[in-house]
């Protein structure tokens, strides 16, 4: 694969309710930050990928609502209605086609403006699953219980993830929920859908994130330290929940393998210095760690207990605080890529993983991690 780099990133602060700002305002902020970060102008961008979802925005062809905000007027622009990691993947493909030198990828979501229950209920097949009242929380709870019962993962082990990530968020100025909590706090928090409790869940969030991908020639010309795309993989599982064994992250295992093969990684926990993975719920960090091969299958609970994934551990996971600390839907995957980019440049400030040279960013799309996209980046 030709060398492609990320040369600019920009994030808004993630907050529950960004009143006074439209989602287009958030896009403009993220795009402007990414251009300033790359030290280029909008005229240096030759194509744009916007990432948004019509239901979350409350309007169809949602990319057209942000034309002015992302400078796409007059440029080739397309929309990916999927997690930001997939949007970035499409942006990468546009570069690899040879038709473009630089792609701006920008994603937005104002979770506060719509209804999470209604919107995520609409993910499901109306005739067979939506009618039962499923949404992102209850469906994830089905997966959490299946995973925990099949492999003996405990609620206390999941609580360790919430504890770690909310504490990590204290070092991230963009994170929404930074706090010190104990396992007991998590166990005593309000039950939402057994076994998921309030402190096991990500929040409703507003925010935007932008990255700029450039081909090698442009990347070398640009002032900031380019972060290279070394490997990428994605895969999708079945759509109907009943068609899957929810305890088995088959799609992630395939996606990770593709990314590792491309990047030449054989021992992930040793060769990867830092990871940002999509923990929409506490159990997910454990399940996805297994799918990514950071530990043996069924050992997600032991992994978090070992301390290997804390700051200062062998492979810190989610130094940013992860999705548990800020969950603007669709944005959260691109934010993982942005955070790894900062880490590999040594710009992680209070959340920097010392000497990080190889990083992994992961995003999911669809209910219970139906589809996964894995990125391996290197400085």
């Amino acid at each position, binding site marked *: 694969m030709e060398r492609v780099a990320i040369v600019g990133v920009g994030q808004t602060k993630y907050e529950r309710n960004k*009143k*006074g700002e439209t989602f287009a305002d958030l896009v403009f902020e993220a795009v402007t930050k990414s251009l300033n970060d790359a030290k280029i102008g909008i005229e240096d961008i030759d194509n744009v990928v916007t990432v948004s979802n019509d239901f979350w925005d*409350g309007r169809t062809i949602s990319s057209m609502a942000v034309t002015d905000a992302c400078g796409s007027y007059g440029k080739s622009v397309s929309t990916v209605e999927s997690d930001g990691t997939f949007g970035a993947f499409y942006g990468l493909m546009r570069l690899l086609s040879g038709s473009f030198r630089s792609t701006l990828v920008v994603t937005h979501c104002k979770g506060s403006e719509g209804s999470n*229950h*209604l919107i995520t*209920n609409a993910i499901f097949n*109306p*005739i*067979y*699953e*939506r*009618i*039962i*009242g*499923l*949404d992102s*929380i*209850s469906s994830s*709870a*089905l*997966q*959490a*219980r*299946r995973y925990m*019962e099949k492999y003996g993962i405990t609620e206390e082990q999941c609580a360790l993830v919430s504890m770690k990530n909310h504490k990590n968020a204290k070092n991230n100025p963009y994170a929404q929920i930074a706090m010190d909590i104990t396992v007991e706090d998590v166990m005593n928090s309000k*039950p*939402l*859908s*057994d*076994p*998921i409790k309030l402190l096991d869940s990500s929040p409703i969030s507003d925010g935007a994130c932008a990255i700029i991908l450039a081909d090698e020639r442009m990347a070398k010309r640009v002032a900031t330290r380019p972060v290279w795309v070394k490997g990428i993989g994605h895969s999708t599982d*079945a759509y*109907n*929940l*009943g*068609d899957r064994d*929810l305890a088995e992250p088959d799609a992630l295992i395939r996606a990770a393998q593709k990314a590792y093969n491309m990047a030449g990684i054989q021992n992930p926990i040793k060769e990867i210095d830092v990871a940002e993975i999509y923990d929409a719920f506490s159990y997910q960090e454990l399940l996805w760690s297994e799918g990514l091969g950071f530990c043996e299958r069924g050992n997600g609970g032991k992994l978090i207990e070992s301390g290997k994934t804390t700051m200062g551990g062998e492979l810190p996971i989610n130094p940013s605080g992860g999705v548990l600390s800020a969950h603007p839907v669709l944005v959260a995957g691109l934010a993982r890529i942005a955070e790894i980019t900062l880490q590999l440049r040594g710009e992680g400030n209070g959340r920097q993983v010392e000497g990080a040279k190889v990083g992994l960013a992961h995003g999911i799309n669809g209910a219970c991690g139906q589809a996964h996209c894995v990125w391996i980046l290197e400085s």
Partner: protein
Amino acid sequence: MTNEEIIYPSKINVPYEWSVGECGSRFFYELKENKKILATRCPECKKVFIPPRKTCPDCFIPIGEWLEVGPTGTLITFTVVRYSAQTHPIPAPFAIGIILLDRSDTGLVHLIGGVEVEKIRSGMRVKPAFKEDRRGNLLDIAYFEPVE
């Protein structure tokens, strides 16, 4: 008017009339008229699918064989929903589960009822409780309840 942050409340109400298709129509007809749960089986891999479908997602070929599954099955996983939302078919707290019906290879998502939520366990054997007033949709089964 002061410099307040103005909010514009709105709503999208879009009615639909989706065709459930050939398979869905037969499935719901049997549910409504005969209280039978039907599935389809792939001629190649022999996998039995519920809800029934016209093509095998693994082999990518048409499926023509229909068979009855269940009515009993095993509860694979469940959750007790404790928050309220207008998308819920019944008030919280209520249970949703994935049931592997006997003779089926895929699970069916449905409500679990006829039992206190605290007593539900994965691995339980369950059977459908049909409504008297059936309309030709998935809630013609009120819920799946424990087999005594």
